[in-house]
Each structure stands twice: as structure tokens, then as C-alpha cells.
């Protein structure tokens, strides 16, 4: 792959040179290439084998304070020239924008660590099929009520990317990502349910075992059988750890610089204000070795650093790139392209402890729909889960909604569990929220 990186670096250099030749005063470019294999086994038989080979590049050019962008998946020299030319044409038509431009050169990651993100998996389609089959078999054999399957899928991708800009920055590295997932259906009387489980890692040896993933998918779907509606009421709600990351994403959306300067946030001008109880700390850790969202520099080449967004319940930092930082008169936080490995600290013990503490209420295990208004914080989503009495699960519930307002929900966060063993880049346990409106019968 190292030679591949050099090729990509050369391509970035060529793009920047072409932009300069066409009169751009500044430019940046990113090039990526990846190859992968994806196999799906359904009901014990191979369903699909896909060989994926993706490549692409994007360039942004600046003519003074005007910018234009173009991208392509066609990497032959003629297409590269056409792409740069298109970006320049666009830049002639966009408006002067005081904040348009590259990141401050002093903030660029000229010397960055190797985060151990590249662990290729030499696996043949036959081996991949075997693993997917083991996973699906474990799910189907788990319970007689598992009557159907959408299959188990193994996916492995190896890729490289390089980013460079006309400040002289160039950086890039290879990465890998491997995933195994399983989707099964269970039936009892007239009730049919579907659920899934998965794992995804940088290194194949860290993946959960095929049997563990299959069994988890099976347990989840069987537990949903016999779901009932609830009567409309107010009650405390626990967002189980695997659905809690959505709440953190809503927070990040609201404290992003773009939402702040456009006044398009349900948390306007909240810097240094308390929005959570005092014990809450939410931070990002972009430099975790093998982390799924780890990156030594952001999409503008700015060095990334561990950072608290919320400490003692107070907003300590917005999520900024150079543009939004300029609009707000601040400095970029190295979050061009998003936050990396977001985490919330736990204070509440196990999920069982949270259930005991809630005593009576709703445990939410799945959310549906897009009912989150980023401007007002109004929250109303379809939910599936379990009704809880005396701290123990009573029966599955479905076809209900939970509603509230995110600002109030953040203020009413009672506890976060230590059940953080969920796949993906966000580290959180389950959230207990004091009170929400549940709509049902």
C-alpha cells in the first residue's frame, strides 16, 4: 500500500499544480482509493459476492475569496484536468466570501502519529462465505421461532487516502475496516419481527465471533415477539446504549459552528452555559489507536486533539472548522469532517442498575423516523422497547412514539450506564431521562 500512497500523493501534487496553472490563488485536494469484498449468505446459501473497487478525488480552488469545488471517480489524466477546470469555472461564479480559504498554516499537522488503522485481512471469498454462514447458522439455530433470514454479510475494505493543500501540507495513510452483520426474522402466531446485530473493527482479530453476532441478532429479535402498544402517558425513559449515540449526534449538530453562526440550532449561543447536569462530561478522542473514527488530522489538514465539548455539564467548546470558526471569530477545533470517537462518561453502573433506578418506565431499544427538529429541539420518534415495572422488563412494546424537547431531555439526564460495549465509534452507555411523553392507544 505504501507505493499506492505515493501514487495518490503524486496525483494530489498534479491537481494542485493544475489549479495553480489555471490561476487559482489557493487550492486543496483529497484523493482516495479502496478495494473490498462483500459476501452475503442467506438460509445457508451464498446470495451475493460483490467485488468493490472505489476511487475518487475532490478539489476545491480559491480565487481570492471565491471558491469552487469539483469531484470525480474517473482518475485518468484527462478527467483530472476537466475536474480542476470545472472547479475553476464554478469559482468564477460564486460570491466573495470573507471567510473562504484554507486552514491557518500554523495549525496543520506537519508531524502526525501513526494510529495503527491498517490491518488488511487476506481472506478468500470461500473463507468469507464460511464465516458468514457460521454467523447466520448460529442465529437460525438459536430459537425455533427464528423462521426466516435476510442473511449474514461479511464486508472487508482496504483503502488509502491523501489530502494536500497549497500551504504545502500533504498527508495520508492506509486504513482497513471489517464488518460482520446478521439480520433475522422471528415469528409467533401472527406476529413477525426482524432485528439484527453487527460488529465492525479496524483489525479482523478484534471482531466479535460469528456465533456471538448471530446469537445476539437472534436474542434481539425473539425478545421483540408479542409486542403490545402502551396507553398514552408520561414516564421516565431509558435509551439503551445502542440507540443512545443518536442523542450525542443531536448535541454535536447543535454545537457545530455552522448551526451556531446561522442561528439554526436549538442551543443558540450556549458556549460556557450549563445544558446538562453537573456530572456530565462529553469528549472526543481522535487519536485512539485502531479507533474507527480516529484521524491524526481533519479534512483541512488541521491536527486533531482530544477535547472536552461538555465538562461539568457546561458547553466548553463548539465543533468548528476553519470557516465556521472565522464566522464566529474563533479558532478551528480540527473538526472539519466531524467529531471523532465521541464519548460520554458513565456515572450509573450497569443497565440493570439503571432499570432499578428507573423502577417504572420505558426501555427504548429501537427508534424510527426523522422526527428531530434541529432548530427547535422538538423530538418525536417512533419507538420499540420494553415496559419496565419494579426495575425489571415486563413485556415488549411497539408502535408507540416518545416525544419531548432535546434541551429539556439533556437537562433531565439522570444517569448514563457503563454498558458501553456497543459497536461503532461512539462510546456511550444507556441514558436514563427523567420524563418524556409516550403516545400509544
Amino acid at each position, binding site marked *: 500500500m505504501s507505493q499506492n500512497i505515493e501514487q495518490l500523493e503524486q496525483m494530489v501534487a498534479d491537481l494542485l499544480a493544475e489549479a495553480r496553472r489555471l490561476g487559482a490563488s489557493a487550492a486543496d485536494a483529497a484523493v482516495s482509493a479502496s478495494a473490498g469484498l462483500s459476501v452475503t449468505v442467506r438460509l445457508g446459501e*451464498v446470495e451475493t459476492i460483490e467485488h468493490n473497487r472505489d476511487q475518487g478525488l475532490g478539489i476545491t480552488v480559491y480565487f481570492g475569496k471565491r471558491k469552487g469545488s469539483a469531484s470525480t471517480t474517473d482518475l485518468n489524466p484527462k478527467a483530472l484536468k476537466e475536474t480542476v477546470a470545472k472547479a475553476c469555472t464554478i469559482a468564477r461564479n*460564486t*460570491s*466573495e466570501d470573507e471567510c473562504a480559504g484554507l486552514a491557518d498554516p500554523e495549525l496543520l499537522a506537519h508531524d502526525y502519529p501513526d494510529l495503527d488503522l491498517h490491518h488488511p485481512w487476506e481472506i478468500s471469498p470461500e473463507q468469507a462465505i464460511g464465516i458468514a454462514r457460521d454467523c447466520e447458522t448460529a442465529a437460525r439455530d438459536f430459537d425455533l421461532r427464528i423462521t426466516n433470514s435476510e442473511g449474514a454479510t461479511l464486508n472487508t475494505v482496504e483503502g488509502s487516502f491523501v489530502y494536500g493543500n497549497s500551504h504545502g501540507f500533504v498527508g495520508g495513510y492506509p486504513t482497513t475496516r471489517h464488518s460482520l452483520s446478521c439480520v433475522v426474522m422471528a415469528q409467533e402466531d401472527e406476529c413477525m419481527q426482524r432485528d439484527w446485530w453487527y460488529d465492525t473493527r479496524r483489525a479482523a482479530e478484534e471482531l466479535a465471533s460469528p456465533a456471538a453476532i448471530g446469537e445476539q441478532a437472534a436474542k434481539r429479535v425473539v425478545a421483540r415477539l408479542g409486542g403490545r402498544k402502551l396507553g398514552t402517558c408520561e414516564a421516565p425513559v431509558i435509551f439503551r446504549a445502542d440507540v443512545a449515540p443518536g442523542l450525542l449526534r443531536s448535541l454535536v449538530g447543535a454545537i457545530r459552528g455552522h448551526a451556531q453562526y446561522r442561528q439554526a440550532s436549538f442551543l*443558540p449561543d450556549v458556549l460556557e452555559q450549563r445544558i446538562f447536569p453537573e456530572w456530565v462530561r462529553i469528549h472526543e478522542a481522535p487519536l485512539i489507536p485502531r479507533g474507527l473514527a480516529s484521524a491524526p488530522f481533519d479534512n483541512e489538514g488541521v491536527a486533531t486533539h482530544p477535547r472536552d465539548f461538555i465538562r461539568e455539564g457546561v458547553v466548553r467548546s463548539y465543533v468548528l472548522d476553519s470557516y465556521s470558526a472565522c464566522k464566529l471569530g474563533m479558532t478551528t477545533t480540527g473538526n472539519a469532517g466531524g467529531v471523532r470517537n465521541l464519548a460520554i462518561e458513565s456515572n450509573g453502573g450497569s443497565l440493570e442498575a439503571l432499570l432499578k433506578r428507573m423502577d417504572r418506565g420505558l426501555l427504548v431499544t429501537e427508534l424510527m423516523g*426523522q422526527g428531530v427538529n434541529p432548530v427547535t429541539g422538538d423530538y418525536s420518534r417512533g419507538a420499540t422497547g420494553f415496559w419496565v415495572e419494579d426495575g425489571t422488563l415486563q413485556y415488549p412494546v411497539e408502535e408507540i*412514539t416518545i416525544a419531548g*424537547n432535546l434541551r429539556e431531555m439533556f437537562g433531565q439526564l439522570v444517569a448514563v450506564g457503563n454498558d458501553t460495549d456497543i459497536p461503532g465509534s461512539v462510546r456511550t452507555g444507556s441514558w436514563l431521562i427523567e420524563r418524556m411523553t409516550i*403516545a400509544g*392507544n
Partner: protein
Amino acid sequence: MTDTLSLAQETLLSPAGINEHHLKQVMEALATSSVDAADLFFQYSRLESWVLDDGIVKEGNFNLEQGAGLRAISGEKTGFAYTEAINLENLLEAAGSARAIARAGQSASIAVGTQQVPAPLYPPINPIDTLPDEEKIALLKRIDATARAADPRVKQVTVSLVAAHDIVLVMDNEGRIASDVRPLVRCSVQVIVEEGGRREQAGSGGGSRTGLEFFLKEERALGYAREAVRQALVNLEAIDTPAGAMAVVLGPGWPGILLHEAVGHGLEGDFNRKGPSAFSGRVGQKVASELCTVVDDGSIPGRRGSLTIDDEGTPTRETVLIENGVLKGYMQDRFNARLMQAPLTGNGRRESYAHLPMPRMTNTYLRAGDQDPEEIIRSVKKGLYAVNFSGGQVDITSGKFVFSLSEAYLIEDGRVTAPVKGATLIGNGPEVMTRVSMVGNDLQLDPGIGTCGKDGQSVPVGVGQPTLKVDEITVGGTAL
């Protein structure tokens, strides 16, 4: 040879020196004797987008993409490979990877021919060139000015203008070649309004398979600006939504997204062949109120969800899914139609050459009934009038669906009264369809803004319906 086909060949094949003989060679490498079906899909696409925000044209982007996807099917197995660089060597390599799904077999001999393609439903133009850049910029600025002039409470306006040019060529293992040139334009306007510290947002937009002049006709795009402002101002007055089960009247047009989610996905062939849909095995049974006739029609000229041919070369058509409440059939792609021994319906669609085709909707709508919309509202003592939705989702196995309302009002004693905010509807698709008790005579299709996601693939779609009443749906609000 049609004009479209020569254009597709000149754009996709000639630059790499690929001729019909080479296509035959690649297909023969892909479709060995143990392969039941195979296809080659070539695509060229160009997409230009502009964004006005904060009163200035901040962003412009141009995307160039092309490639070829090769698929070989043996029984229920599919092998798939694609390449971004269209040349004979890559195509043969991809054919070798895709074919590995099947047992080794003899090469079949392919005779190349041209498929009869129906009359195009849209002009074979490049919509990016239908307005000079300066006029695109001027249009964005006029939309911004119109929104800001509409009301002093408008604080933020974002406008996007997108034009896409797609050329596809598909060849199957019988040697049939078909092609299509697909223009697509879209404009959307988002506004944020503020009054007394309270902020609300709303959006509007539209689009079509035509050129950008579509937005200039009758000042159509300025209408989007006024509509977005109107909706946002309504939301400023909105009160908390009542929570619980109640009668819901859905307005005409875009609320048809409810059908798309509640029944449309459940009628896609793949889900039904594999059996996880709540509608599986129910053809001939009553699955909805007899007032409901639901069709999918990819052959309506110029619509966002329309295609002259689908991504497997099958001409699109009108397919009746539910007639007077009785389930008639499913939407199919070649793979599922063959396995279910069902007719092709022209619903084989893919996001791009890098994705496998699946049965997908085109324009899905409920046919008009005979009731006056006013009468429908008058019939409700206490309920909700849902005019606009921001999105929906369905779990086709359990049939559960969810929608988020972006504009809705209370109905009290047969009259539309206060606007409500942040409401969600949740229900069970098959159940809700049996509770449709009144259907209006005012069928409308949506303005051309829909995008549907399935298995990570997005495709443009259309929806529509007349005003209709559902006797009971659970409304997720905050007010008890």
C-alpha cells in the same frame, strides 16, 4: 439505431475504443452456461450543484462519474463487480470476478442486437447546459430576495439548485442493448424565521426530468420561496401536538409518502420472494379499504420518479398494486421476477453502476375517489389535518411505519383550527390501509422532491394521493 443509443455509445464506449464485438466478448466471459442471467451496465453522469446561503452564493460543486457494473446470476446467487475505468481489460477482469459465483461452464455464444426502447418520457438533453451560469446565479439570488421580501421575520435562507445528466447503456445475456439519457433538475429552499426569540424552519422545492428553465416558468422557483416562508410562519404559531390515537386527514400530493412507506416498500418483489414482508403471499386478498387503488407508474412524462427504461433495460409502465382494496401484484426487477415467475414491471433500479439493481418504486400514488375534500374535513369531530411531511421510515417485516409532520393542524368540530408542531404519526401499514374511510377527488402528485433510500441506495421517486381520511392513527405529540 436510435439517437439515444448512438449518443450512449459515443459517450461511454467509443472513448475507450470499445465496440459491439468487445461487448460480445465481455458478455461471453461473464455469461457461461451455468449462469442464468447476466448484464453489463455502463453509466456516465455529470452533476452540478449550487448553494446560496447567508445571502451569497457560497458553494458550487461539479461531479463527474462513470463506470460499468457487471452482474452474473446463477439460481439465487448473484456475483457482482464494477470498474470506474471503462476499458476492455478492466471489463474482462470484472467479468471474471462476477462470474465466479457460478460453477465453471462453457462460454455461451451471444448475438448482439438492439432492444426496442419506447418513446422517451423526457428530452435527451444535458440540463446543466440549459441555463448559462450567470443566469443560475441570478435565479438563486432572486429566490433569496423573494424569501426575504416575503416577511421581515425571515432570518436565514438557503437555496440549492441541482442539475444532473445521466447516460446509461445496458446489455443483457441475450445480447439486447438498450440505452437512456436522463436529465434531472431540483431546486430547494429552506428558511428560518424568528419572532420573539422563537425560531422555526421550513422548506419547499420541486423538480423534474427536464432542463433548468422548468424553474423559470410562471416563476415556479419563486413560488418555492414563498411557500417555505408561509410554512415557517405557520410553525411560529404552532402549539404542542396532542398525543394519542385519533382520526387523521392527509392532504393531497406529498403526503402520499405515507403510501410509499406504509404499503409501497412492502410490495417490492425482493421482500416478498424472501418472505419478510407483511404483504408476502397475499395476492388476491383484501389488504386495504375498498376505496384504495394504489398504482406505481414509471411512465408518466417528465416526472422525477419516471424512467423510459429501468436500469435493466425493461420499459417502465403502470402497475396496479392494490385495486379496490385487493392486492394485485408486486413490483419486480429481473432477478426476483424470474424466481417468482412473475411479469417484469420495469422497477429494476440501482443508485449507480457500483450498486446492484433491486425492485424499487417509481411514482407511487393512490387514485382519486369521489369525495369533496371539504366534506372529508367536516366529517372529523376531533383529529389532525396533516398537510406536509418531512420524512418517513418503515419496518416492512412488522409493517410498522413512522412519519414526521412538518405542517399539521388540529381539526375541531369539522373545522381546521390551530397549527401543531413536531408531530409524528406511527402505525401499521396493512392496518392503516384498512382504516381509510374517505378518499377525495383531488389527486395530486408531489412537486418532484422525493428521494427513497433502501439498503444504502438512494433513487429519485415520486408520490401522490388525493385528500384522504384514516379513522385512527397514533399521533406522537407532547401534550396529554
